[in-house]
């Protein structure tokens, strides 16, 4: 891996990690989500330091060039991430519905003096 590329990607990875840490510090990102993003950032750093790992993985899955291995796993990662968001959104939707109904029902109780 050319040194130029290394510096470029390393800078991006470091900025990403800093943003994540800052978001956690300001409580903008819940701690339980932060590990995921920290792991993502760390993986980028790891792949920059140990390009041979990517080559090894490429061999393992039978891909031809490391770039496609990288893209494949990136896309897979993003797909799983959005799946996870869909699950969380479904849960949140249900919770909002239940809460909204409960608020309305309690207000009705209150108004009727029940």
């Amino acid at each position, binding site marked *: 891996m050319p040194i130029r590329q290394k510096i470029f990607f390393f800078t991006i990875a470091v900025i990403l990690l800093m943003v994540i840490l800052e978001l956690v510090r300001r409580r903008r990102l819940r701690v339980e989500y932060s590990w995921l993003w920290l792991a993502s950032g760390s993986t980028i750093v790891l792949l920059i330091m140990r390009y041979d790992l990517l080559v090894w993985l490429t061999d393992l899955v039978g891909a031809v060039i490391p770039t496609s291995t990288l893209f494949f796993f990136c896309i897979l990662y993003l797909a799983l991430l959005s799946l996870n968001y869909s699950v969380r959104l479904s849960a949140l939707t*249900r919770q909002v519905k239940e809460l909204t*109904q409960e*608020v*309305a*029902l309690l*207000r009705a109780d209150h108004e009727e003096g029940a």
Partner: protein
Amino acid sequence: MIGSGRVLVVMPCWNEARNLGEVVRELRAERGGDDVLVVDDGSTDGTAAVARQLGCRVVELPLHLGYGAAVQAGVKYGLRRRYDAVVTFDGDGQHDPADIAPLLQAVADGADLALGSRFLADGSYRGGLTRRVGRALFSALSRALTGLALTDPTSGLKALGARGQSLFALARFPDRFPDADALVLARRSRLAVAERPAHMRPSLNRASMHGGTRAVAYTFNMLLSLLVAALGREADLRG
């Protein structure tokens, strides 16, 4: 007619302030002894205030949740006050209050869920072509998935006995498209389902539910919802 038993008529309403008075008056004229509950589904036209003026019970949802969730809120209200039967009745004037009595009779005769069917009524109701095609499709699917040969599984006019109410109050009840898929769930939960004639009229509110381009999205989502309901586990409604 069933003499005993308290009945709650649940009317889910979204911006029906203009027509509500007429619908409620007609309902009261036919069913004087029943409690009328207006579930205001986050209206912006003062539907809740009109309902209070009319002397209805009101559950006012602070957010617009959609038809199914509004009905569910009404059923939960009924369950907590231990009504013997809960009737769901559209707030846009397309249901005929005279059709409620036969549905309640069906519940008294042992049905957990009684549906008003516009196709069993004489003087046939015909919607647009897309609606008829959609309805035929749901009907066939409902039959395939539930084994219930219902003529009008998308009916919004229903009477619920105790177990029917419990089903509608379930957290995982399909609240976005609670028509045909509710029946799948009902059948899988071994509820007794009955059908009685209902006379549908054109909605007073022109922009009401199934109109225009939304029909396509509705159809797709409902098919999906049906399949999901068919995949789901049976609900345990004992106790």
